[in-house]
Every structure is written in C-alpha cells, then in structure tokens.
C-alpha cells in the first residue's frame, strides 16, 4: 500500500499531528510520502521518506485553491492508494476539495482500522460505520488522537521542493487568539460541567452549586457557551480547554468526541444523564442515570452536610 500523508503547518509551526498520520500508516505497513506547505528552514517532520515541500511564504498557511493544485501534482507523481489528512480545520477543509477533483471516496474522521477497512463514527458516536471506497484512491481524515505512535517519530526525510500556481480565491487576513482571562479551569482539581441537558440558563446555578460544594469550578460544553449561558473561558473541548482534574462531573453532556477530547484525561469521571446510552458512558467511571434537575440539588445538599 502506498500512502501520501498531508502534514500541517499553522501559525508558523509544524503541527505534531503528522505523527498520528504515521501511526495510521503503520497499521497498514504502508510505504509513505508526505506533503507539507511549510518552511524548509524550520523544523521538518521526522520520518524516512520523500517529503514534498511547498514554501509557506509563497502558498500561505490557508490557501485551499493553491494547496489543492500542489497536492494534485504530487498525487499524480506518487500515485498513492490512500491520501491521509488529520480531521482538523485544515484537513476537513482541504480533503473534500481533493476528493471532488480526483473523484475519490473520502472517509471522514477515521477512528479505527478493522481488517484493513476504515471505521468512522455515526450519530454522535452512538454508532460505528465500517466503510470502503470504490475506486483506486481513497482519501481519509483521522480523528484527532485516534492513532498514536508507540515510539517518538524518527528519521529525516528526502526533501523534494514543489511549486505551482499560487493564486487562490480565498485570502487569509490574519488570526485571532483564543479568548482568555478570568477563571483558569486547567488549574481546578474538581470541575462540574453543564451540558445542553441543563435545559435553561437558570439551571446553571445547580451546576455551579455542586461545583462549589465539591470545592471546584464549573465548566460547560459548547452549546451552553454558544447560547451565552456560560462564558467561553469555561468551555471544555477541542475548541475550548483541555483539562485533567481529579474529578470531572459531566451534567447533561452527551459526550461528543469534541467534548471528550477536552476532558478524557480526567482522573475520575462522573456522568449525570437521563440517556443510559449517551457516549459519555465510554469515559465515565460512574454513570448516574438521572434527571440532573432532581439529582443535583439533593447531591449538593448532602455534600454540604458532610
């Protein structure tokens, strides 16, 4: 199997996620080449193989038209059977462009390999789908964290400079840093988070009350932050914070992968949810099947009485 792995460069840095692509390729014993729009003078991916390198100064960090054309040229040279991206803001943006141009099947957010076939989540990870592409080339994007190398990446690539037309129809004007300030949840030993299951903003006080009784802070899943019931600096997940407290209590949170990514390293996880099948169960040490509006006041009161 021949694979082309697409590494990423963002805000002047090579992203470590290229090692996840190598780990995935390892499961197939694939022969790999890599593609990167990056800086040849800076850090390069560590692996032994051909690295097709386009200069970021010319082609930009986000210029999907130009990156697609460069990739199409490399694909024509390498003739890979699989082209692999991270399922990231870069990968899910670029992969379907390439797939449409090549008329190749795209498999999004691969979480596992089962007998050579790709497995992806469906319905908020309540189901799993095993899929197969019909053509000579398949494009895959890998769920963040789903594949990891046992040992540190090693080797130095054979760099092949690639060039092409630099024009693109979308222009990157600049970056905006994440909002910070106020409470720092990453320092809390106990976090009690509110999910959409709280139902209405008034119920945030139930969650905050339990957090206080446990001597911790309250956090939230994204919909609660999007609805402006809780500030963004308390959002846990891929587009918020990554936390690893001693205790994480997820109240009315289904356990979408983007939320789990932010809290699955917590030492002990308690889920409070009315849906026994909610995927938060995959990471919960204790799963209280209960209506949070009933359980939280009782639990808080009992804790205060300790």
């Amino acid at each position, binding site marked *: 199997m021949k694979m082309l792995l697409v590494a990423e460069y*963002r805000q002047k840095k090579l992203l470590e996620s290229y090692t996840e692509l190598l780990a995935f390729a390892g499961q197939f014993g694939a022969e790999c080449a890599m593609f990167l729009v990056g800086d040849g003078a800076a850090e390069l991916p560590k692996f032994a193989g051909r690295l097709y390198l386009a200069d970021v100064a010319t082609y930009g960090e*986000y210029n999907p038209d130009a990156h697609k054309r460069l990739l199409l040229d490399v694909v024509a040279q390498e003739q890979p059977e699989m082209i692999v991206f991270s399922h990231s803001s870069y990968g899910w943006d670029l992969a379907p462009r390439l797939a*449409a141009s090549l008329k190749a099947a795209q498999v999004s957010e691969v979480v596992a390999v089962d007998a050579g076939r790709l497995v992806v*989540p469906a319905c908020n990870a309540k189901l799993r789908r095993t899929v197969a592409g019909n053509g000579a080339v398949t494009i895959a994007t890998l769920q963040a964290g789903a594949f990891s190398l046992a040992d540190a990446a090693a080797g130095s690539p054979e760099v092949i400079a690639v060039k092409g037309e630099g024009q693109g129809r979308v222009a990157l004007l600049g*970056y905006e840093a994440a909002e910070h300030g106020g409470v720092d949840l990453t320092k809390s030993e106990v976090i009690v988070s509110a999910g959409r299951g709280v139902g209405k903003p008034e119920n945030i006080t139930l969650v905050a009350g339990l957090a206080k009784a446990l001597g911790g802070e309250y956090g939230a899943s994204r919909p609660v932050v999007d609805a402006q019931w809780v500030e963004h600096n308390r959002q846990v997940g891929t587009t918020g914070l990554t936390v690893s407290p001693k205790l994480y209590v997820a109240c009315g949170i289904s356990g979408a992968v983007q939320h789990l990514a932010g809290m699955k390293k917590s030492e002990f996880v308690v889920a409070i949810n009315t849906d026994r099948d909610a995927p938060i169960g995959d990471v919960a040490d204790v799963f209280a099947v209960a209506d949070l509006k009933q*359980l939280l006041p009782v639990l808080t009161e009992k804790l205060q009485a300790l």
Partner: protein
Amino acid sequence: MKLLVCIKQVPDMESKFKIDTDGVWYDRGDLAWRMNEYDEYAVEQAVQVKEATGADLTVLCIGPDQVKETMKKALAMGCDRGVHIADDQSHRRDPFQIASLIAAFARDKGFDLIFTGMQSQDRGSGQVGVMAAELLGLPAVTTIVGFALAGNTITVKRELEGGVKATVEATLPALVTCQLGLNTPRYPTLPNIMKAKKKELLTVAAADLSPADALLNTVKLTFPEKKGGGVFLEGDVGEVADRLIRILKEKTSVLA
C-alpha cells in the same frame, strides 16, 4: 441577489438507535426527526443576509417526503421558497452523490451565496458543502463562526482548534459551511409558521438531476464496544446521591 441554503433532516441524537435489517444504516422507523443542528445556523445566517439586502432565499433539502416537515421550519424562519429533491434513497447516498444533486440543481441558477452546515449530525462527514462548491467551481470557506457581507465581498471567521480563529475573505459567488455558535437561530413565530404554509414548496425528482455514482460504500453499521468498567447508578435520587458520595470517598481524594 440570490441565496441558497441546504438543509438535512436528521434524527434526534438522543434517540435509541436500532440497526436496520440491511445492516448498513440505522432503522428509520420510530425516530423523532429535526433539522440538522449545524443547518439551523446556516438558515439563520441566510435569513439575516436576506433581511439586510432584500435577497431572494431558497431552501433545498434532499430526502423522502417526510423532510418537508423540516423544510417548513426553514420557511417559517424566513426562507422564501423550498425545493425538495425527492429521494427515498438519500440515506444510502454518499456525500459526493448528495453534492452532485445540489450542484445539478444549483448550476445555471446564479446563486450568489450558498450556505450549508459544516457537517450532518448522523453522517458527520463534513463533505457535502465543499464538494458542491468544487462541482460548481465556487470558492468555499468551511467552519465559519463569524460572517460579514460588504458589497461583493464576504469576510468570515473560520474556527480553528483551541478557540483560535482565522479571518478569511472571498468574493461572491461563494459557498460557506456554518459552525455551531455562528449566530442565534430564531424560533419561528406562530404567524410566520402560518405564513410558511402558503410559501412555494417545489418538488424535483432526484433521478431528474442524474446523481453521480457512489464513491463510498458502507460495509456495516455496528454499536461501539462499551469500554465497560463504569458503574451505573439508578433509582431514587436520594439513594443515588448517597451511593455516589460513598464512591467519591473511596475512589477519589476530593472529599478528604
């Protein structure tokens, strides 16, 4: 100006799913259906542009007859007309086929701006919007959490990892895929729900748009293996609370 917004009807994710007898998709009976969450943001953004510019706004949905219920919500939110691409097999089609249907409908209609969700909740592929743009030769920007239109230019915020955003500019015609939190989707008011009933809802057969062949096959659909090890607590909330406190005392140091 002409606008198009593409929406999908999906089951409520809190449903108890069963695997269909074909083994490759979920059983579609006995489910509560709603608009794909991401598409609610797409509809809201499209309606806001319509309100600001007086543009004409079409909502498109591919699926069986029942999707008209969801289309009515989009009409009640402010879309001017609906185009239902009738397709009983839409759940079996891959993203490229769905994109090819959207592109076949939209081609030569002169849409200035097309809105889609960034992904569908059941399939979660995040492909349809970008592929449709590629097929139509339009620039596309994915995962937008901020949107501004001035003249012929859109300035949008793309959401990246860890809360970082990128500001990106493109010239119309263009397609954007909408992320959660882009805006606050409105609830249709009763008068608008009544008005929506009188709006045009056109049906086109999918076969008339000659969908592309599938590129991707589902081999099987399964339930994930449960990690196990977790303890379930159920029943009277007072007892659940007592048991939970006991476990926290035994297994963690937070109550020490």
